[in-house]
């Protein structure tokens, strides 16, 4: 079921709050991300998103820096 409302995390503006829907990455990366709190259904708050640098995302009470390529692989809405 492909939800048309989903978009890559990298496109979300700073200050917004979204919900993570899917992670399009290999197993290892998925495991690393879940250990940091990135699981489908989790609320994410975008603190910084200024090209070309990495994003700063608030998840489960902490801040995590994500490279842009990484943020492209997270589908949110």
């Amino acid at each position, binding site marked *: 079921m492909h939800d048309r409302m989903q978009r890559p995390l990298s496109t979300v503006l700073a200050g917004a709050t979204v919900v993570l829907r899917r992670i399009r990455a290999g197993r290892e990366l998925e*495991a690393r991300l879940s250990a940091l709190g990135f699981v*489908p*259904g*989790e609320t994410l708050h975008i603190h910084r998103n200024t090209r070309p640098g*990495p994003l700063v995302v608030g*998840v*489960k*009470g*902490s801040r995590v820096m994500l*490279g842009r390529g990484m943020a492209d692989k997270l589908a949110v809405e």
Partner: protein
Amino acid sequence: MSGTLRMALAGNPNSGKTTLFNALTGARQQVGNYPGVTVEQKEGVCRRGGAEIRVVDLPGTYSLTAYSQEERVARNYIIEEKPDLVVDVVDASNLERNLYLAVQLMELGVPVVLAFNMSDVAKARGLEFDLAEMSRLLRMPIVPTEGHRGKGLDELVAAAHQAAASAAGYRPAEIHYGADVEQVLAQITARLEGQLPRAGARERRWTAVKLLENDAEVQAGVASGEVHALVQAEQARLAALLGDTPEMLIADGRYGFISGVCQKTVRSTVEARHTVSDRIDEIVIHRFWGLPIFLGLMYAVFWLTFTAGTPPMDWIDGLFGWLGKTVAGFWPEGSESLLQSLLVDGVIAGVGGVLIFLPNILLLFLAIAILEDSGYLARAAFIMDRLMHKIGLHGKSFIPMLTGFGCSIPAIMATRTLESRRDRLTTMLVVPLVSCGARLPIYALIIPAFFPQAWRAPMLWIIYVTGIVLAILCAKLLRATLFKGESVPFVMELPPYRLPTLKGIWIHMWDRGGAYLKKAGTVILAISIVLWALTSFPTLDAVDESLPAEEQQAAQLAHTVAGRIGHALEPIIRPLGFDWRIGTAMIGAFAAKEVFVAQLGIVYSVGEADEESEPLREKLQQNYSPLVGLCIMLFMLISAPCMATIAVTKRESNSWGWALFQLAGLTILAWLVTFAVYRLGSLLGIGV
């Protein structure tokens, strides 16, 4: 229960675990390496509450998968060494994510005590906790602690003793992964009974969960093809049924459990959106100001290391000079004693050559410790990431590269912060290309000898830039060939700024400094003695006494093994424009680059020469062209730095293979580049 209590300390990075470890064990710590891997092993002794406790500080991890060395080391320590208990240090201001590790520790079956750390920070953020209820729900003791203030430690120790004493009746809460997954787990567990006859129910369940999670290490440990087939079939079925990978289902189950616990026990009273950290970050990782601030701080680190480090360095230099003279004084003037020579020229000179760098190294590590403990280094990685990525390195590679401008040894040690072995090895191998401080005397000698005033600063700049450019090119080459693969994606926690503890910084600094002393010192001392032997034997029996002392020295040197090797090397280095004298000096330079200047002095019968020596410069001018001067500097820049570097590479990469590859690679690269420059220059008639 007799004997010393054995406690393992686990927890997320940035949870204050190390501070707590320092507070518990004080100076009674030992840092080493786990055998076979390059993960640091820290052990200490805690003497609070009367009894002795052996504390092992496990690597900081977010989880216990098999994907990283740190995680494997942490969980294997618990499984194989079977400590009496594990204290999980939890950052109270970040509870949900920190508990992800706690629930996994619970599944291992070892008694767990939760150190509820940074409770003051959480309180300031308006968070309130019902610890009694939380303890009841998790079925484990929870002790509030403030590691950086030394609070709660006695209570923690008491709880630890209690937990160990009641280990037999330990029954942690069990995670329920949802009916479908639970059914599959039951099936796998049942099938495992035959495979793991001596395992308890808890161990079998843990194995089942891990198999479902595709844990490579656990999979390798289970021999039965039948079990594997079952697991694979069920994974596919669950995926089709629930629309998620098994790993995701397990993660969901864990977070679901945690969420349930937190909902009942955590209350947020204030909506704290912008913290102090945020406000600092607005400037520090500002789009425009971030980089200048970063460069400014790096400059400050350098300044601290080399300017503030100079007086102690001079002092140590003086001390060893005095020591040398005193020991030499035990023998009559003009004595030919071998022992005297060994002690003065070999041992004292060799050890002095290493210890002289100690102030630099300590100051550099002090600066890095402050930056790291305060949380700034994460911001630096953020700022440098894109640039580093273009070179094929990771954001975290920047600090080692920068450190390399001072000395390669701590730089290579600093690569420990890189998680991926690929990134780590690439950085380690190219770091020596960045011109280290020990090469400066060589440039200081040669540049004024061959180049007019106006050319001097530009020449020095050209050398440094060449080093940087070569480092970049080699990094790219390595990443394209040997260390091919996706660059580790940049995912890193951004911890809030914290005020580093003095104790923490101090221990941090001596950790690394002590390692430098021990390892580099023993290796350099040994090889210094070898080199002393090479440059002293065999002696010329019939020296023409009528010649001045310096020329006698030069004749002696030509006769020794080093001298002969120098002659033997000549055919290889002739194409670079070098002769046997430079060859001989190069051999000494292998121990430490500064030796090059002194050896060159001896070879040219200038006697005691250093980089300010005008007579030596004159000799160089007479014998070589500016082009050769440049070539000497290039060769010294690119070729392997002191062999202590090779030794440290071996230690940090845990392999002689990579260390020797570095040595060979750098030497060959040096030869090729110098050859190209010399030939091209000769052809074009520049500087000849």
